[in-house]
């Protein structure tokens, strides 16, 4: 398939490698051109502009961080909307707000292009192994066009609906529950510590009973080890994510009291200097609120 890819961060590079491995004709573009070197060596062509990455393409994938970057590459002069052929698909694979996805879907529709949102579940190493989860939504024919690409990228596609924002909200809701799990674990650890229990024991009880899941095993361990300096996802990025979630909830009129409680913990963690630490540092913040640290 003739595919364009914009955004060659760690995730983008991993996706590019998977698609090249399956024999796709791939053109890539990244604002910082050096980042394309590895992918070009593996067989891709580097474009010098977004328009170049869209020319003749059946599908153009974006894997960029944040709404502003997505808005720019899509809507600016010489952006995807101006450059993509009618009938071609913009496959948006980053994690973005519902409002942003809706706005882009409308813009592409006006230009008689198709839009699919397909945020991914998993880290870059899972992407490199073709083991991502993919939450896809958009018009049926457009999603069908993307299926061969999904097949080489992921282990599982979750079809969320016919409107691109269906995928965006599903991904955000999953992140939401992860945040709430971190908040709840933090509270549990503080409570048992105050009663003289070693956090490791509580960790074992949780992860060997009701919570034998990656969310609890991975983040519970970081909390027990207090290894907040090894950063997977920063507190500042987590706040950004939660703000997207809360904005979607505002729009839909859905009160999220657990989310509010967690967002406040994130704010306090940042206020105490933890913005660039791993967001599991909410456990330390909860401990501080309990008079432990």
């Amino acid at each position: 398939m003739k595919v364009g890819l914009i955004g060659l961060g760690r995730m983008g590079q991993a996706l590019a490698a998977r698609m090249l491995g399956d024999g796709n004709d791939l053109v890539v573009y990244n604002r910082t051109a050096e980042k394309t070197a590895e992918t070009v060596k593996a067989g891709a062509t580097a474009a010098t502009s977004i328009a170049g990455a869209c020319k003749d393409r059946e599908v153009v994938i974006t894997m960029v961080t944040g709404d502003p970057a997505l808005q720019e590459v899509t809507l600016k002069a010489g952006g995807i909307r101006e450059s993509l052929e009618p009938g071609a698909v913009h496959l948006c694979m980053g994690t973005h707000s519902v409002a942003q996805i809706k706005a882009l879907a409308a813009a592409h529709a006006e230009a008689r292009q198709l839009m699919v949102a397909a945020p991914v579940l998993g880290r870059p190493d899972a992407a490199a192994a073709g083991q991502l989860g993919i939450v896809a939504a958009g018009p049926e024919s457009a999603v069908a066009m993307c299926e061969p690409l999904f097949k080489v990228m992921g282990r599982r596609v979750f079809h969320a609906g016919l409107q691109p924002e269906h995928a965006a909200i599903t991904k955000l809701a999953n992140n939401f529950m992860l945040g709430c799990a971190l908040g709840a674990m933090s509270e549990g650890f503080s409570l048992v510590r105050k009663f003289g229990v070693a956090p490791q024991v509580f960790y074992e009880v949780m992860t060997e009973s009701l919570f034998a899941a990656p969310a609890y095993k991975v983040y519970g361990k970081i909390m027990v080890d207090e290894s907040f300096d090894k950063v997977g996802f920063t507190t500042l990025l987590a706040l950004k994510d939660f703000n997207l979630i809360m904005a979607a909830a505002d729009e839909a009129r859905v009160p999220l009291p657990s989310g509010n409680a967690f967002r406040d913990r994130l704010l306090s963690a940042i206020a105490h200097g933890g913005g660039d630490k791993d967001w599991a540092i909410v456990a330390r913040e909860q401990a501080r609120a309990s008079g432990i640290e």
Partner: protein
Amino acid sequence: MKVGFIGLGRMGKGMAQRILSGNHDLAVYDVFPKAAEDFRGTAARIASSVADLAKDREVVITMLAEDSAVRDVALGAGGLSASLPKDAIHMASGTYGVETIRALEAAHTAAGQTLIAVPVLGRPDLAASGQLGVIPAGPEEAIARCEPLFQLISKRIFYAGTKPESGSAIKLANNAVLGCAITAMAEGFSLVRKFGVDPRVLYDVMTEGLFAGGVAYVGYGKTMVERSWDKVGSPITIGMKDAHLIAAAAAAAKVPLPSHDVYVQRLLGSIAHGDADLDQAALAKEQARAAGLE
């Protein structure tokens, strides 16, 4: 070992049968005589009162649903502290509050006996097959003496420390995390529903990703998606009872629990809407109601 067992409800019955299978000298008692009927014709002796059960026992296990019940059994006239021999052990296995555990500990210590708290993890089917998790807490020597009993009722032992209240704190904290997980799932489902997404999709995303293998999510999430909260595993009233114990422990230890507070408020809303006897998964209904969905 001479063992007594008080509280032959769904959990207690299975645990007592496991103890019996270890060829211990077992005496059983329940305030409702019918509950002991299953032990008629077995090697167990059916006692006529707490005092009758306790008089010659080395260890007495209590598995009762309420703090008030274990207080009656242990502290009342003719109760365990008055009836157990010196040096005997009271193994408190229900999910009891920290204050209650402290009161029992004081009374048994004064009588020359030892209290250990050994709350359990798992449902009645696991109790019957000896597959529970146990969380023993208390003086080391007493814990060591009860080790053979742990082996009969559990597949996994989590040693919580030398103070009985530590066991209680762990069990309560685990339940607190569960309450928060149920509340968060309810919020997540109502959010995607408002955008027109089938809740089943979010369920699949959760349980095949970050929350795979987590019984809390796989189980309660399924009940929420299927709206089958009429089939009651753990009712909202029990959630409320535990939530009170958790809040009391947190107040005693001065630990703010904002997520757990949210859970408590949703429980109250559910009860206010007449859903007290539904499964706790019905918090999804309450959350949806708050979001204008039902």
